[in-house]
C-alpha cells in the first residue's frame, strides 16, 4: 500500500479515556491495509477498521511522546501516545489517507473474503426478497398493483425498480406526479395494513412553490385514498417543522395545499433536518466524552444537545402514523424534503409499531432493506463512506436504531432480537465490509455490481442468530400486535451501550442477558433429554417379554447417560465464560473507577488534610 510508511510502532501507550490519572497500557501498534491494530502487553488486541475512523487528531507534543486521538463512527475513541513524533506523523498521515477513500472500489467490501463460494454468496444476497415481502403484506391485490413505470429507473433514479401504486393510478398520472415531486419521488406504497386495508405511502415534497399545482399529483393522492375502502380521508404528514416547509416554498418546493387536494388532512410533525441532527450528536459526544464528568454537567449537556428531544420527535411521528391506521383506518402519505431521511425513519418505525413481523430478526432485516436501502436512503453520503461533503453526513439511521432500542426497553417481550443486534447493524453501516449499505440508491448499487463483487451482511447475522436473541421474547402474546409506546419524556434515556459501547468501565459488571439466554438454552436441552428418556422408557415398556423389562431398562438407560452428562457439562461450560469475564472485570475494576484516584492519596505519607475533587488535590489547613 502506497499510503503506509510505517507498519509497526513499539512502546505505544493507549490511554484510558476516562481516567483522570492518565492510566495507560503499553503495547505495539500495527498498521495494515484494512485495520489499525494495537496489541498490549497482556496480548489483548484492539482492532480498528480504517473505515470506522471518523477523525484523527495529532495533539501537541508532550514529554512522554506525541498524542494521537482517533474517533470512530462506532463511538470508539482511542488516545495513543507514540514515543517518536516522526512515527506519529507517519501513522497520522497514513490514517488520514486510509480512512477516506475516493473510490467505492477501494472500500473493504471489495476485498473482504469470508470464505464463501460464489453460489453461497448469491444465495446470501437472495436471503431478503422484497417481492415476497409485499406479497406477505397482501399486495398486489384489487386496490394495489405493481407498477413497471420505473423498471428502467426512468422516472426516478433513487427509487427501486419495483414500485406499488394504487390500481387506478395510470402511468401518465404517475409520470405527471413525479414531475411535480422533488427528485421525481412520487407517492408509492411503503406498507400495507391488510386488516385495515390502509396504507403507509411515501414521497418527497411537492414542487408547489407559492401557487403551483399538478392535477396528476392530485389524482394520485385521490387514488391512494380511494384504495382504502374503509376511510374517505387520508393524512398527509410533512415530517419537517412548519417553518422549514414554508421556507422551501420560496425555492419552488414546499407542501401540499389542502384546498387543492380533496379529502386530505395535512399535518406537520416537526423533525429537524440532517444538519441539526449532526450537530446535536456532535454536542452529545462532546459532553459524554468529558473526563471527570459531573452528574449535573451530564444532564445539562444531554439537555442542551437536544438529542433525546429529536429521538422523541421521530417516535411521536411514527406513533401518529400507527394511530391513524389503527384507530381511524386512514391511509397516510409521509414526506419530508427529499423523502429519504425523515421519511424513511417515520415509515419504517410506523411499520414496526404496526406489524410484529418487523420485530423478528429476519423481519427487521426486511424492514431495513425495504424502507432504507431500496427507497434510497443515502447510506454512503450519510455515513461518509467516501471522502465527500461532510455536510451530507448525518446520524439519521443511528436515530432510527435508537428509537427501536427505546421500544425494546419499553416492550421487553415484543422483540425477537436484542440490543447487540442493533449495535451490530450500526457497526456495519459504517464498516464497508459488506455490500448492503454501499452506494446511495439501488441504481448505483447495480452499477457497482455489488452482488457480484461483495457479500451481504444478513446471512452472517442470521448465522450468529443465537447471539442476537432476546430471551424474554414472547412471540405468541396477542397483546403485542400493535405497540403503543408512551412517549412521556422520562421514558427516554441516554443509550449508554451505544455511545459508550467500547467504554467497558461504564457498563454494568454482570449481564443478565447472557445468563437468561444460557438458562433458556439449558432448559430446552434438558427438556429434550427428558422427552428422549421418557420415550425410551415407553418403548421399553411396550416390549412384550415382561421378564426382561427391568434388566433391559437398566441396560438401555445406562448407555444413554453420557448425553445426559454432556448436557450437564455443557451447562457448566456455558456458564463459565460469563462468570470468568465477570471476575476479570470485577477484579480489575477499582483502578478503573474514578474513586480510585484516591489510591494515591492513601499512599502519601505526609499527614495532610486533603479534599479531592475528581482527582485534583486541594490542600487545606
Amino acid at each position, binding site marked *: 500500500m502506497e499510503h503506509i510508511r510505517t507498519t509497526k510502532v513499539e512502546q505505544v501507550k493507549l490511554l484510558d479515556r476516562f481516567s483522570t490519572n492518565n492510566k495507560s497500557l503499553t503495547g505495539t501498534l500495527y498498521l495494515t491495509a484494512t485495520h489499525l491494530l494495537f496489541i498490549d502487553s497482556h496480548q489483548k488486541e484492539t482492532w480498528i477498521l480504517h473505515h470506522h475512523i471518523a477523525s484523527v487528531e495529532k495533539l501537541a507534543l508532550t514529554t512522554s511522546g506525541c498524542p494521537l486521538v482517533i474517533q470512530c463512527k462506532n463511538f470508539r475513541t482511542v488516545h495513543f501516545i507514540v514515543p517518536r513524533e516522526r512515527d506519529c506523523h507517519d501513522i497520522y498521515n497514513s490514517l488520514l489517507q486510509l480512512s477516506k477513500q475516493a473510490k467505492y472500489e477501494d472500500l473493504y467490501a471489495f476485498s473482504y473474503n469470508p470464505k464463501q463460494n460464489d453460489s453461497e454468496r448469491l444465495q446470501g444476497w437472495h436471503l431478503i426478497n422484497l417481492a415476497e415481502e409485499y406479497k406477505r403484506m397482501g399486495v398486489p391485490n384489487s386496490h394495489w398493483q405493481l407498477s413497471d413505470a420505473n423498471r428502467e429507473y426512468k422516472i426516478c433514479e433513487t427509487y427501486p425498480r419495483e414500485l406499488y401504486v394504487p390500481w387506478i393510478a395510470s402511468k401518465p398520472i404517475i409520470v405527471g406526479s413525479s414531475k411535480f415531486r422533488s427528485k421525481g419521488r412520487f407517492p408509492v406504497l411503503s406498507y400495507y395494513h391488510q386488516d385495515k386495508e390502509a396504507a403507509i405511502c411515501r414521497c418527497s415534497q411537492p414542487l408547489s412553490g407559492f401557487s403551483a399545482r399538478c392535477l396528476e399529483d392530485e389524482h394520485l393522492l385521490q387514488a391512494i385514498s380511494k384504495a382504502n375502502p374503509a376511510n374517505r380521508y387520508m393524512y398527509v404528514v410533512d415530517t419537517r417543522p412548519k417553518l422549514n416547509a414554508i421556507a422551501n416554498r420560496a425555492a419552488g418546493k414546499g407542501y401540499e395545499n389542502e384546498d387543492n387536494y380533496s379529502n386530505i388532512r395535512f399535518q406537520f410533525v416537526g423533525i429537524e433536518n440532517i444538519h441539526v441532527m449532526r450537530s446535536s450528536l456532535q454536542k452529545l459526544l462532546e459532553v459524554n466524552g468529558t473526563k471527570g464528568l459531573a452528574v449535573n454537567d451530564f444532564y445539562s449537556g444531554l*439537555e442542551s444537545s437536544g438529542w433525546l428531544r429529536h429521538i422523541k420527535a421521530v417516535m411521536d411521528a411514527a406513533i401518529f402514523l400507527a394511530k391513524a391506521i389503527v384507530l381511524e383506518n386512514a391511509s397516510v402519505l409521509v414526506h419530508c424534503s427529499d423523502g429519504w431521511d425523515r421519511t424513511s425513519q417515520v415509515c419504517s418505525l410506523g411499520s414496526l409499531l404496526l406489524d410484529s413481523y418487523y420485530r423478528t430478526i429476519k423481519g427487521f432485516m426486511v424492514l431495513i432493506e425495504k424502507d432504507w436501502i431500496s427507497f434510497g436512503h443515502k447510506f454512503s453520503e450519510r455515513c461518509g463512506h467516501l471522502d465527500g461533503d461532510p455536510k451530507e453526513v448525518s446520524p439519521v439511521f443511528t436515530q432510527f436504531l435508537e428509537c427501536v432500542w427505546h421500544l425494546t426497553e419499553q*416492550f421487553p*417481550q415484543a422483540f425477537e432480537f436484542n440490543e447487540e443486534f442493533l449495535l451490530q447493524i450500526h457497526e456495519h453501516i459504517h464498516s464497508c465490509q459488506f455490500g448492503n449499505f454501499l452506494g446511495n440508491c439501488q441504481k448505483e448499487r447495480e452499477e457497482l455490481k455489488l452482488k457480484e463483487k461483495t457479500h451481504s451482511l444478513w446471512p452472517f447475522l442470521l448465522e450468529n442468530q443465537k447471539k442476537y436473541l432476546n430471551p424474554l421474547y414472547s412471540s405468541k402474546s396477542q397483546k403485542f400486535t400493535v405497540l403503543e409506546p408512551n412517549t412521556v419524556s*422520562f421514558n427516554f434515556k441516554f443509550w449508554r451501550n451505544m455511545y459508550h459501547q467500547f467504554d467497558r*468501565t*461504564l457498563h454494568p*459488571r*454482570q449481564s443478565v442477558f447472557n445468563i437468561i439466554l444460557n438458562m433458556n438454552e439449558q432448559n430446552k436441552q434438558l*427438556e429434550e433429554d427428558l422427552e428422549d428418556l421418557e420415550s425410551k422408557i415407553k418403548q421399553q415398556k411396550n416390549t412384550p417379554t415382561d421378564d426382561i423389562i427391568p434388566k433391559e431398562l437398566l441396560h438401555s438407560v445406562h448407555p444413554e447417560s453420557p448425553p445426559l452428562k454432556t448436557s450437564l457439562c455443557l451447562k457448566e461450560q456455558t456458564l463459565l465464560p460469563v462468570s470468568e469475564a465477570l471476575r476479570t472485570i470485577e477484579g480489575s475494576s477499582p483502578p478503573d473507577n474514578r474513586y480510585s484516584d484516591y489510591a494515591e492519596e492513601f499512599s502519601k505519607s505526609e499527614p495532610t488534610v486533603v479534599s479531592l475533587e475528581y482527582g485534583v488535590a486541594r490542600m*487545606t489547613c
Partner: protein
Amino acid sequence: MEFSELIHTGRAQAELRRGGEAPPLRGTLCVTGHHLLLSPGPQSTPDLWLLLLRSVDSVEKRVAGGSGTITLRCKDLRVLQLDIEGVETTLDIARSIEALSSLESVITSFPFFYRPKGLRLGDAWHFHPPESYYKRVARETTAWRLSEVNQDFGLCPSYPRAVIVPREVNDDALARSARFRQGGRFPVLSYYHAPTRTVLLRSSQPLAGPQKKRCAEDEELLGAVLACVHLGARGFIVDTRSAQAAKQARLTGGGTEAKAAYPGWRRLHRPLERGRPLQESFVRLVKACGDTEQSMDLWLSRLESCHWLAHVKEALTTACLAAQGMEREGACILVHGSEGTDNTLLVTSLAQLILDPLSRTMTGFQELVEREWIQAGHPFQLRCAHSAFSHAHPKHEAPTFLLFLDCVWQLSRQFPLSLEFGEGLLLTLFEHAYASSFGTFLCNSEKERCLCEVRTRTHSLWSALNQPKAQRKLRNPLYVLNPLTIWPSVEPQSLRLWQGLFLRWSRSPESSEVVWEKVWQIVAEGEKTEGAQPTASA
C-alpha cells in the same frame, strides 16, 4: 385519647381514582382510627380497599356543587383521588384524615394494634441484635469484645445496649470517650473485613470546640483500634463534611480530630448533602416525576437541577473510597459527620454491601439494615415523618435512608446477579420506613423502642418478609453467590434514575413486572426439568 373524637363523619359514598390504568372503585368510604376503607360491595373483587392513614403525606380538598374531591398524596409517592358526595361530608372526612394521619404518639399507632394471622409476637425480634454480629467477628479475631457499657442507655441514648469495641479498652475509657463525642457516640465497630483484617468504625464528631480540646481516652481508643490490626497499621477518618464545615463546627463545640493527637490516622473530607437540602432535592425530583406533560428539555433540566443523582453518586463514591481503603490499602476506616446518625450510616452500610458477600444475601441485608440503621440509631421517626408531598415545612425530615436504598438499587443494576434480593425488597423497605403496620421502623433509637415496648407489643417486618409466600416478589431469581468485592461504576453515564420507585405510579408497571415474572418462570422451568431428569433415568 379516643380516635373517635377526630372522626367527624365516619361514612360516605365515594369514588376512588387510583391513577394509571387501575379502574375507579365506587362504594362506601369509611374512616377508622388507622385506616381509610372503601367497600365496593361483596360481589366485587377485591371486596375491600384499605389505606393506612399513616401513609398519607398530604390532603387536598376541593368542593364544587354538591360534592367534593379529596386528593391524597401518599408517602410511597402514590396519588389518590376520592370523589365524595356532600360538601360537609367531604370537609369532615378531609379533616379527619388530616388529623389522624399526623398523630405523633407512637404507642397509639397502628403497629400496636396490628395482629396478623400466622405471625407470633416477638418472633423475629431476637433475630438481629449486635450479639449475633459479634459472634461472627469473634470467629475471626479475639481482638474485639462486646461491651455492655451502654446497658441502660446512659452513655449514649442512640446506641443499642451492646456495642463492639477493642478488647484492650475498658468500659471507663469508653465512658470518657463517649463524653468527648456528640450524643455520646464513641467509635464502635461497624464491620470487620476478614480478608484484610481491617475494620470499619463509626462515631459522631469529637467535641473539640474552639479550644481544640482533646480526650486521652478517645485517642487511646483509636490507637487501640490500629493496634488490633497490626503494628504500624494505618487508619483514615472519612469525615462526611467539607474541611470548611468541619472547621466551622468547632464554633458550636464540635469539630474534628486534631492530626497530632491521633498518630497513624489521617483525615479525608467527603462532603455529603444532608438535612433540608437533601429533602428538597427529593421533593423537587418527585415533583418533576409527577409531570407527564413536560417537554424533554424541561424534564432533563429538572432532573439535573434537583441534584438527586449527584447525591447518589457522591454517596456511592464515598462508600467505595471507604471500601477501597480497607480492601486495597489495608487501612482501618472511621466514618463520621456531625451526629453520626445519617450520612455516617449511609457510608458504612454501603461500604459493607460492596465488600461483604454475606450482606448481599436476603438475611444478610436484613441484618445490615437492622444493625446499621435501626439499632445504630438512625432517627427514622424524625427523618421519615413526611415524604415528598408534605406542605409542612421540613424540620428534621431527610430521605437519607431512601438515598441508601437508591444506591443499593444502583448496585443491583450493575451487579444483577450478586444480590439475593430484588427491587421488590427495596420498595417494601421504602414504604415501611415511612408508614408501616409493623414496629420495625418505629421510634428514633433502641432506647425509645424499649420505652415503648415495641419489641413485645408489635410485630416485626422481618418475620412478615420471611414468610414463604412473600419470596417471589422479594428475591432475585438470578442470584448466585459472588464472593468478590463489587466495585460499581460511579460515572454519570452508569447511574440511572430509579424509575421503579420515582415513576412507580406514573408509568405502566407492566414491563418490569412481566419481565420479573418471566425470569422467574425461566428459572423455575430449569429447576423443574433438572429435577425431573434423575427420576426419569432412575
